[in-house]
Every structure is written in structure tokens, then in C-alpha cells.
């Protein structure tokens, strides 16, 4: 972890319009929670539904995409990354720092609003708020790693990321049940399920699979990102 790299990355992400993108979805989640509560629909079934269908399956992958690619892809695009990489800092350290920044942003803009929305709806009932907060936290960390890698590997990270988030995680995941096993958000749900006693919430991915999978994907993506950054090539306009 390099504090100068982290500082510049935070400024690049939070000082520009990207922060609006990061705020939009969590604000929508909290607004929905407030509305449901105002209309007296704040029961456990609705809460679990909102958490499953919006917080962890829509908001989180998109936030992951914005933060994960956002910590590095724009810098690669405009060449500012050279400023960091032409210094005696190992490239894996740069990749790890970028990952930590993205992961922290997902915690703040993903997990915290999820917890707040849960509390607003049903308070501490059956550990649903805590469960989903933990689930979005770990899934968010994994998304940060995967999308960081994607941002280094390809210049079309956002397009590919959206296709992944929408087609693989949502569409294919809903049509072909087995795919759940290979989906970050379902691993997150598995963690959430573990912490929550709600009868309205069941997941089909075993915790014994979800935890190792999350660790392997997160660590693997960060390591690979470091390796890819070591071999980073400037292909000039010539």
C-alpha cells in the first residue's frame, strides 16, 4: 500500500463527477427503503426482496464496475498512470493500493447504505440488515478486485463489465440455476444468509463453496492485476 498512490486515486475518483455515479445507486436504495416504510410495506419479505433484487444484484455490481475500473482505467487511458509507474514502486504494490481504494469505496457506497436501508426497513430483525451488509461487503471486495483486473487488461472494461454484470450475473444466473455457483453476488448472499435467521431468505450456494471462492477470486484477481501491471506496455501513437 502506497499512501501517495492512494491519495491521488481517491482524489481522481471522488473529486470528479464519478462521485455522483457512486452516490446515485445507494441514494436510490435508501430512498426506496424510506418510501416502503412510509407506505407501511416494511416487512421482512419485502426487505429481503429489495436486498436481493436491488442492493446485491444490481447496485453492487454496478458500483463495483464504477469503482473497480475507475481506480485505474481512466489513468491508463489518458497516460497519467506513467506518473505512478515511472517511480521506484513495485507495480504489484500499485495494483494492491488501487484495489484497497476500490474496496474501501465499495464498503462506503455499497455495504453501508445496504445496512442503513435494512435498518430503516426492519431494524435489527433476524439479522437481515447485518447479514446483507456483510454479504455486500465481501462481494463488493471481490467485485473491486475483478473489475480492477478488467480495467488493466482491456480498454473496453466498462462495456465488458456491464455485459458481465447484466448478462452473466442476472440473466444467465436466473435462467440456469447452476450458474449461481459461479457468481460473486450469490457468494455474497450465501454469507448474508449465514448471518440472518429470516425464514424469507434462502440461498442455494453452500457457504463451504462461497468463502473459498471469494478468497480465490479476490486474491487471484489482485495478484494477476499486479503481474499485468508489471508487463504494462506503452504503445505509442506511432
Amino acid at each position, binding site marked *: 500500500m502506497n499512501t501517495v498512490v492512494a491519495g491521488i486515486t481517491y*482524489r*481522481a475518483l471522488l473529486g470528479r463527477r464519478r462521485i455522483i455515479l457512486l452516490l446515485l445507486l445507494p441514494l436510490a436504495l435508501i430512498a426506496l427503503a424510506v418510501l416502503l416504510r412510509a407506505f407501511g410495506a416494511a416487512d421482512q419479505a419485502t426487505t429481503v426482496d429489495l436486498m436481493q433484487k436491488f442492493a446485491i444484484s444490481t447496485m453492487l455490481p454496478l458500483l463495483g464496475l464504477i469503482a473497480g475500473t475507475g481506480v485505474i482505467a481512466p489513468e491508463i487511458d489518458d497516460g*497519467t498512470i506513467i*506518473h505512478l509507474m*515511472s*517511480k521506484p514502486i513495485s507495480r504489484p504494490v500499485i495494483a494492491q493500493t488501487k484495489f484497497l481504494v476500490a474496496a474501501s469505496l465499495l464498503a462506503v457506497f455499497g455495504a453501508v447504505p445496504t445496512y442503513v436501508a435494512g435498518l430503516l426497513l426492519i431494524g435489527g430483525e433476524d439479522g437481515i440488515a447485518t447479514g446483507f451488509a456483510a454479504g455486500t461487503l465481501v462481494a463488493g471486495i471481490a467485485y473491486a478486485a475483478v473489475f480492477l483486473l478488467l480495467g488493466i487488461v482491456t480498454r473496453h472494461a466498462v462495456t465488458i463489465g456491464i455485459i458481465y454484470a447484466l448478462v452473466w450475473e442476472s440473466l444467465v444466473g436466473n435462467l440456469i440455476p447452476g450458474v449461481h455457483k459461479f457468481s460473486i453476488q450469490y457468494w455474497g448472499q450465501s454469507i448474508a444468509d449465514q448471518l440472518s435467521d429470516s425464514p424469507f431468505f434462502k440461498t442455494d450456494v453452500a457457504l463451504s463453496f462461497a468463502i473459498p471462492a471469494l478468497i480465490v477470486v479476490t486474491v487471484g484477481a489482485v495478484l494477476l492485476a499486479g503481474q499485468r501491471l508489471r508487463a504494462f*506496455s506503452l504503445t*505509442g501513437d*506511432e
Partner: protein
Amino acid sequence: MRIELSQVSRWYGNVVAVNDVTMTIGPGVTGLLGPNGAGKSTLLHMMAGFLSPSGGTVTLDGTPVWKNHHIYRNIGLVPEKEGVYGFLTGWQFVLSAARLHNLPDPVEAARKALATVEMEEPKDRRVETYSKGMRQRVKVAAALVHDPPVLLLDEPFNGMDPRQRLHLMDLIRTMGTAGKTILFSSHILEEVERVAQHIEVLVAGRHAASGNFREIRRLMTDRPHLFVIRSSDDRKLAAALVRDDSTGGISLRPDGLEVQATEFRRFARLLPQVARDEGVRLHEVSPADEDLESVFSYLINRST
């Protein structure tokens, strides 16, 4: 310190960008001269560890440059691309470079570097408000902040106004005299001539010539020149010119004479003399290949 390139090639798919280049860049100022698209940036990126050679090796005092972040303790890089965070002030940008180098006194180092490029006054403005020349100078300051023995600059004078250009030229010369190893690329001969003690010419990815500016200049003026001449009597003038050794060949064309002069200086004296003696009036004398591209293509043909 020395950068050594040994049989370095780089290709992208079927396109060869740099072809079997061997050269050593030692202390002093070296200019890497070549037309646009000659592979200067590609070569410079390989020296800076931002591109792997497809063949051959690039080393800095014997240690390979590729995948070796330790080289940046000794190298300062000024890339051609903007590469400056617009949301930082000039001061923050240079200070961040000093911190990334983990210097003992980053504040003092940043202050000194900004003073070197005369950017103290606008240092608290955001980089996005800077002119291209100011951005260029801030980049130079960031590259100099750790006082590296090796400095690589890619087209550093682009976008600078004449005063800034002179200032940077002075700065580069001074650092070269102080024993730093400096390499900068440019496609303008005059620029290179004024700053570099040594010139390496790159054409179409190949190392076409090497020497001090006098040698390079001579190569470029002593080459055969092609002139297009229109006169009151082309045929008569052609007959008279062809008698002299400095004329390599003449072709008569509907729009005038095309004359190949083998010795530039002698021909330049010969032509007006002959015209006067023969009573031929010259309407137009224009060099047909005076652009840099043809100078370079002459060099590359010569070297093969």
C-alpha cells in the same frame, strides 16, 4: 550511466516499428532524430522500461530495464503524452513525484525542481489551467525531482513557445555538461543541433546514422540534390550543365529540367555561372526533395 541497446527490435504483429538497433547512450546530451513514425517513441519507451523489446536487450549500466522498477531511481522520464493529473496543482503534482520517490525531504526537492523549470509562480494553480508549455515544464520538474543521472524526454519541445523552448534547451545543455545522460527525441534537425552533442538518426525503425551534428549536417548537405529548373532555353542550359562533374544527370521535361546535382556546393556556384555564360534566363530553381523526409530516406538508402 549508460543505456545500452543491443540488436533491439520491436514489432507489432506484422509491422516492424524498430529494426535491429544497436546503440549506446552515454553521459552528455544525445538527440534522437527522425521523422514522425520512425519509431523514436517506441525506442524511447523500451529504454524507459515501458515496452518489452521483441528482440535484443536494453540495459542500464548492465541491468535489464524491462520489468525492473528499481531503474526509476536513476531515470527521469518525460513522456510525450500529457500524463499530468489535471485536478492537481503543479505543486501537488511535483510533490507527489518526490513522495513517490520516497525522498528524505520531498518539499525541498519539489521546490527546487519547480524553480529549475521556472514554474514557481503558477505552481498553486491546477494543472488543467496550464498551457501546453507549462504542463511540459511541470512534467520536466516531476522527472527531475530526484535528480536522476539519466533523463529521457520524448519530443520535449513540442507545444512550447520560443522563450520556453530556449529555456529548456539551456537547461538540458547545462545538465548534459554536468555529466547527466540525457536523451531526447525530436523530428526537427535544428532543435537537435542546438542542444545535442551527439545525434542518433532513426528512419523507418532503423538506425540510419550516428555522430555529432557536424557529421550529420554534412551527410545531409552532401547528399545528391534534385532540382527542378525552368529557364528561357532548357535544352541549351541542360547541354551546358551536363559538361560539369557536379551534375549527375538531367532529364528534359515539359515543365522544365530535372537536374541531379551530386555535389551541392559546386553545383550551387555552377548554375548561375553557366546560365550567364550561355545567355539563358533562369525562371525558377527549386529543390525537389528538400523536405526532411527525403533527407532521411537518402540516409536510410545509404545505410543499407
